[in-house]
């Protein structure tokens, strides 16, 4: 049997392969680049890539290992939540908001509740507002822990991931104790919060908060002096403040670029004006700065939580609006009027005065706005979420251009991407 000759390199390229490449990136290829050229190479990264934390596809044009241009292709997780909201009663939208940014359900709930309350012109009792602040900040810590763990894992530091998830487990148990759910909490409702926390819960939260600052020191002890961590993060993915503003970047990436803006402090909602906290800002603008800013934010969130626990007012946890808020179970069994209200709210929902409002909160990933339009019926006419990741993703190309391909992983980690909120 004659030996089979090694195929010529030219023959290995199937005929027409260039057309296939052109077609596959037709809608998403980076501007001005030819997907089949002698100078550069098109690399398809994702949608199933572990560092994209979901399903994000990046079409990257490479010159050797250097990134010439980059175009994100999103929509793989698009489930049409905004369309579904239009077919639900106002109260039924709350559980769907959990699933948008699945790392900070409490923040989503709060943003939606604030918008509808603004339409209804409802006054929320102080205790409910403080509970919202408490759980918003615990959610911020929880979300940042997931970010730190996965970011470090992407860079190659496995231990931090395990440590972060150890503390996150404590927080998820707290969420379970208060709402019955670990992740999709639906705790913050229109008109207040769902339940009064269990009696011993504040003591458990206090115990967690007491030990948590030392845990942050522990993470920093693992990372701050690690030469690989420093090399991979410092002077990588620079974003200037001008670009950050022009591209709509918000949250920790904006503050890491030196723009001092935080919705909690500058446009306070839900009694945030009564809390003392610092807003960490860095002028460096690189991946390292985003790391430092988020670590400091966790410390500040711990302080806010302690203030909330110390000054937690007594009183009702829902607004006094029987036609909007489901009555107490006991009252429903004994009072005719409560029974009627319960029946009507469940079967017909509640009507919301016509109008359009925007609510804005500082989510762990940045500024989150809910735009709710009402036509006076029991179902929202339009619900739109402005999520931070969607805008921040536009800045990815600016941050990655001219860097090495391995830095894309570090930059994606540093903007704390959650595809659920981007695709909705």
């Amino acid at each position, binding site marked *: 049997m004659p030996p089979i000759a090694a195929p010529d390199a030219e023959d290995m390229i199937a005929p027409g392969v260039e057309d296939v490449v052109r077609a596959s990136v037709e*809608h*998403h290829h980076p*501007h001005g680049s030819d997907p089949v050229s002698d100078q550069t190479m098109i690399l398809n990264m994702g949608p199933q890539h572990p560092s994209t934390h979901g399903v994000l596809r990046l079409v990257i044009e490479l010159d050797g290992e250097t990134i010439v241009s980059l175009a994100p292709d*999103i*929509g793989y997780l*698009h489930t*049409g939540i*905004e*369309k*579904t909201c*239009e*077919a639900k009663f106002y109260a039924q939208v709350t559980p769907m908001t959990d699933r948008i940014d699945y790392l900070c359900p409490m923040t989503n709930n709060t943003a939606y509740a604030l918008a509808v309350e*603004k*339409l*209804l*012109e*409802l*006054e929320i009792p102080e205790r409910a507002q403080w509970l919202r602040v408490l759980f918003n900040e615990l959610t911020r810590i929880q979300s940042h822990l997931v970010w730190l763990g996965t970011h470090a894992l992407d860079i190659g530091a496995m231990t931090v991931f395990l440590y972060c998830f150890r503390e996150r487990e404590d927080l998820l148990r707290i969420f379970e104790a208060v709402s019955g759910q670990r992740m999709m909490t639906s705790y913050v409702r229109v008109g207040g919060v769902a339940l009064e926390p269990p009696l011993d819960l504040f003591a458990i939260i206090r115990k967690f908060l007491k030990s948590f600052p030392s845990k942050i020191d522990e993470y920093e002890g693992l990372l701050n002096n690690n030469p690989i961590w420093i090399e991979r993060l410092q002077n990588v993915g620079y974003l200037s403040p001008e670009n950050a*503003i*022009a*591209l*709509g970047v918000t949250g920790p990436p904006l503050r890491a670029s030196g*723009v001092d*803006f935080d919705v909690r402090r*500058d*446009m306070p909602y839900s009694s945030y004006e009564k809390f003392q906290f610092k807003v960490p800002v860095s002028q460096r603008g690189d991946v390292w700065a985003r790391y430092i800013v988020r670590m400091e934010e966790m410390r500040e969130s711990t302080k806010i939580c302690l203030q909330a626990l110390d000054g937690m007012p007594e009183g009702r946890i829902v*607004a*006094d*609006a*029987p*036609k*909007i808020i489901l009555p107490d179970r006991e009252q429903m069994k004994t009072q005719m009027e409560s029974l009627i209200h319960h029946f*009507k709210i469940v079967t017909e929902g*509640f*009507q919301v005065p016509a*109008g*359009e*409002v*925007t609510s*804005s909160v500082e989510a762990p990933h940045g*500024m989150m*706005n809910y*735009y709710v*339009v009402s036509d006076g019926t029991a179902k929202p*006419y*339009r619900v*739109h979420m*402005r999520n931070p990741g*969607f*805008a921040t*993703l*536009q800045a990815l190309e600016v941050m990655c251009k001219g860097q090495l391909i391995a830095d894309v992983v570090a930059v994606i980690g540093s903007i704390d991407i959650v595809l659920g909120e981007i*695709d*909705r």
Partner: protein
Amino acid sequence: MAEPITDTVATPQAVFGKDAVTAELADNAAVNGLSKLITDAKWDRGELTLTVAPETIVAAMQAAQTAGYNFFEDLTAVDWYPTAPRFQLSYSVLSLKLKQRIRIVARIDESQTIASITSVWPAANFYEREVFDLFGVTFAGHPGLTRIMMPENWEGHPLRKDYPVEGYR
């Protein structure tokens, strides 16, 4: 529930109409900056909504930017089908310095196009693609107006009111 909700606090009266809002918010940076372009205005629930003609949207955005509203937040559409003009485009811009938000609204019909504002705010890029994808509004002068959420070969625009919530078209 026809009767009004009783358990609410008294809020400042909403103000409708250009002249009334101009009188009410005489020292507002946005009202002054856009005074020539506003066709209608609304001050409701502490939020300022300024309506401009769709042809002047780029000029309005530049005027807002000059007036200190330096941060583009959001763009979305509302489909008022079957009313004409059909689409309400709501631009939300923020001033990081004044810590104020305004909503700039332009109304267009199905057959009309509107100019892209990506020359003023590059951040509008993805938002215009999203509105194009889900509502079918065309933005003239956009650098790459393709579908962003739905697959490229998708037919129809899901967030239009005549598009069913469930089932097949």
